[in-house]
């Protein structure tokens, strides 16, 4: 029962290529597609924040061989801006497409994709609490992994860990001169 479906999926994958998808995207959305290319049968698209919902709907339902499912979404702190990456897949061949959005650090707002993908719910909540990206219209915008009332966005590069008694790195030995676990030997490694 399993092999036949597998084979058809693989043959279909081999028979077609994705190069037209990138061209179509550029044609359809023009300037708002910052980048669209195919690398090792993986589609890489970088779009403006305003059209992310439209592009994802287009990729997941409207093209000939769509990427109907969201597999993963995560954020990256690129220093001067934030990036949110969506990984769309096809279930028959496990082909992937990466859709990226660049956002300014201070006012990072994106429309939510929860209407399109159930997967987006938790993934967006995680990105929101880790990077401080606001997802407009998210049905459940609470903290996901961190306790209620957490301050700061931990995965941003400039995050300082809170000064909390549970976290304080106090000397482990009775005599602090003997052993300091949070020593600086580590930072000097590369030089």
């Amino acid at each position, binding site marked *: *029962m*399993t*092999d036949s*479906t*597998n084979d058809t*999926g*693989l043959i279909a994958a081999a028979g077609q290529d994705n190069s037209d998808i990138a061209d179509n995207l550029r044609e359809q959305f023009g300037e708002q597609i910052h980048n669209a290319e195919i690398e090792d049968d993986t589609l890489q698209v970088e779009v403006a924040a305003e059209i992310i919902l439209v592009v994802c709907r287009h990729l997941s339902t409207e093209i000939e061989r769509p990427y*109907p*499912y*969201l*597999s*993963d979404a*995560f954020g*990256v*702190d690129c220093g001067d801006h934030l990036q949110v*990456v969506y*990984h769309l897949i096809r*279930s028959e*061949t*496990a082909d*992937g497409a*990466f859709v990226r959005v660049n956002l300014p650090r201070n006012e990072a707002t994106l429309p939510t994709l929860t209407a399109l*993908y*159930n*997967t987006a*719910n*938790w*993934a967006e909540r995680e990105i929101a609490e880790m990077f401080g990206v606001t997802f407009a219209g998210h049905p459940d915008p609470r*903290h*996901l*992994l*961190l*306790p209620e009332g957490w301050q700061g966005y*931990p*995965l941003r590069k400039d*995050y300082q860990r809170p000064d909390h008694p549970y976290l304080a790195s106090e000397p482990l030995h009775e005599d602090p001169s003997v052993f300091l676990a949070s020593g600086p030997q580590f930072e000097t*490694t*590369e030089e």
Partner: protein
Amino acid sequence: MSETTQAPLTTEEIVVNLGPQHPSTHGVMHFVVTIDGETIRECVPHIGYLHSSLEKIAETLRYEQFITNTDRFDYLNGLGNELCYVQAVERLLGIEPPPRTVFIRTLMAELKRISSHLVYLGCYGNDIGAMTVFLHAFREREPLMDMFEAVTGGRLLYNYLRIGGLRNDLPTGFTDQLHRFLDYLPRRLEEMNDLLTSNRIFIARTRGIGILTARQALSFGVTGPTLRGCGVPYDLRKLRPYAAYDQVEFDVPSFPEGDCLARHLVRMEEMNQSMRIIRQLMEKMPEGEIQADVPRRIKPEAGEVYERVESPRGELGCYLLSDGGAKPYRMHWRGPSFYNLQALPVMVRGGLLADFIATLGSLDPIAPDIDR
């Protein structure tokens, strides 16, 4: 007690907190379950009780130092996680590991899959109420633990894979040990099937319980045995072969029912398929070096990579972004349990409280894999 009772009394829904400390939550998760009598009206998962900030830690460690931490994501699949991470780093660096290394890595990942499914089997038996299955499954797992210890020096967390190689070759006597185990395990699995899988009570507890349709599963990003239990033969080992999976033959078991029993049967069959893979790997195992040439300072060029492997729980993704330094600039881990668990509220709605436990157990979630 049953939901068909039409009582003239006014009834009240009660809210039960399952977890964070609860005998069946498979680690620490918290579910706020609203029940009417015994029927579940709503279930809201609260996660993050094991959020250990490993993605942040990855940014402070060198590439080779972080291998030991990948074990801690999904601790039942330590070698599989290492495989995913090491493959990602190797792709960043453009290194090809020697063939013997690839074979040993695949072999260990498959052994780990068997071990992980045995833990699942035991815990599922415990959830359903069959304590003996739990202890039997852990008993069969002990020879495996001995093998892991002989190869890697650790029982549960290994730090065995290296970038472009392995820590050490297989020890002497390993082949005999493995063959003894492979001869012995199928008989014991058969016994376990007699004891649990074919039991009328077990079937009554799992058939038609926690149903997830294929479309729902895909839209929730569910992968692994849970998705294959919905009739979708989605397996990265077959669809996008990595390591040595393109050199072995195996089937991808899938059952169309989408209930707890189907997921259970998928895992039971996967253990047999893993044994088949291991036998083939042992036959074809090439001789040779186990370490590729790797620069002493591992500093990949700026770039990014998204590596995917099939863990016992589903699709494992590792995203690495390098800025040219010795430490990853950003590391993201796609834990399969994270997305699998998201589908739980849909699966348990309208069922009984006992079905909740059965459904949760059949997803086989691992807390650090969810919370990272």
